[in-house]
């Protein structure tokens, strides 16, 4: 009898979760953004850090980002089951048990924060811990389901890695580190709203109060333009501080000019115009926003690396 029960327990799940399923729980695409921005924060910060410690610190920041992704997937499994885009994620697809995702998220949170503290310093570790808490609890568990500003709030959680990278290198978080945070914070809403305007996201099925649903698409177009203005202000100001320089300022002005032009296009269009040309402007802003962030952060690294860089 007992043997039969054990046999059933061993064979009842023909599709055991593989490593790939656990890897997907960590949201690798979000992790790659965190890695990129954390590397930039670490490289542009003043001060020296041993290359091995720098690389290892980035690894723990990435693991922390992955941990918050797993916690998010655990809590959002009910939403993920409803939406087409997320239905194939490991928990709604039934490949990973919710409890396993929670355990993985909590375990990796503790490991990443502790190891970052031991590898770099406890200021960086504390900010990593706060970021995981902010994304998993403040954003995922609370504000994502209650306010239409969830995109901006979620963006803030994704904005911290460059500051953590900076703190890992220096032990502090000066104005320049916060400007890198502000840059990603201001960038996220127009980036995401441009996508929401041309992809039919079924957030309303999942009862998530996205701006396109709660305030309408016209208001989303207006907000995209307003946030693009705010982004340009933060971006140009950042280029005039210690992380910038003449080259960065020139590049940043060009990047923002195109961004503002595309956001203005979106603002003055209607959904009928958008449907007529296959969402040309919305798709263009979405693509440009990806290029924008990559080049913007890269030019700060170039300024830091050039012997004649900086102000």
């Amino acid at each position: 009898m007992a043997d039969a029960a054990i046999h059933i327990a061993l064979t009842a799940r023909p599709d055991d979760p593989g490593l790939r399923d656990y890897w997907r729980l960590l949201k690798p695409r979000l992790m790659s953004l965190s890695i990129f921005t954390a590397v930039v924060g670490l490289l542009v910060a003043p001060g020296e850090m041993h290359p091995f410690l720098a690389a290892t610190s980035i690894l723990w920041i990435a693991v922390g980002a992955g941990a918050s992704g797993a916690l998010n997937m655990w809590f959002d499994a009910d939403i993920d089951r409803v939406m087409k885009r997320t239905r194939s994620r490991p928990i709604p697809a039934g490949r990973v048990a919710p409890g396993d995702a929670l355990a993985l998220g909590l375990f990796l949170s503790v490991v990443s924060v502790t190891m970052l503290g031991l590898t770099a310093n406890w200021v960086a570790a504390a900010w990593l811990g706060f970021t995981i808490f902010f994304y998993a609890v403040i954003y995922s568990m609370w504000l994502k389901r209650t306010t239409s500003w969830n995109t901006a709030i979620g963006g803030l959680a994704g904005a911290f890695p460059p500051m953590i990278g900076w703190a890992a290198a220096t032990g502090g978080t000066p104005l320049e580190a916060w400007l890198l945070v502000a840059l990603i914070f201001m960038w996220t809403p127009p980036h995401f709203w441009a996508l929401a305007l041309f992809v039919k996201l079924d957030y309303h099925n999942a009862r998530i109060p996205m701006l396109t649903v709660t305030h309408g698409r016209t208001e989303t177009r207006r907000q995209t333009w307003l946030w693009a203005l705010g982004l340009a202000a933060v971006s140009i100001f950042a280029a005039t501080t210690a992380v910038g320089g003449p080259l960065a300022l020139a590049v940043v002005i060009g990047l923002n000019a195109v961004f503002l032009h595309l956001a203005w296009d979106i603002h003055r269009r209607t959904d009928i115009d958008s449907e007529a040309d296959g969402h040309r402007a919305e798709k263009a802003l979405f693509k440009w926003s990806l290029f924008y962030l990559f080049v913007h952060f890269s030019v700060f690294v170039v300024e830091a690396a050039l012997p004649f860089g900086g102000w």
Partner: protein
Amino acid sequence: MRVEHELHYRRRGRNFGVLFVLLAFIAIVFGVTMVKVETGGLSEGFDHVLRPALIPTDEVSE
């Protein structure tokens, strides 16, 4: 002859993955330790100095 259970085949990839992660973790901790020791980052002030609080009072008075 010992027949291996089908479960072991099924989970082989995952188990090797966990092994790799654990070995990588050990290598990283070892590497960080070596770097910290070489650069002196591991030394806390109180690790390598005599702390007066630990010296018996009669020794101090002598």
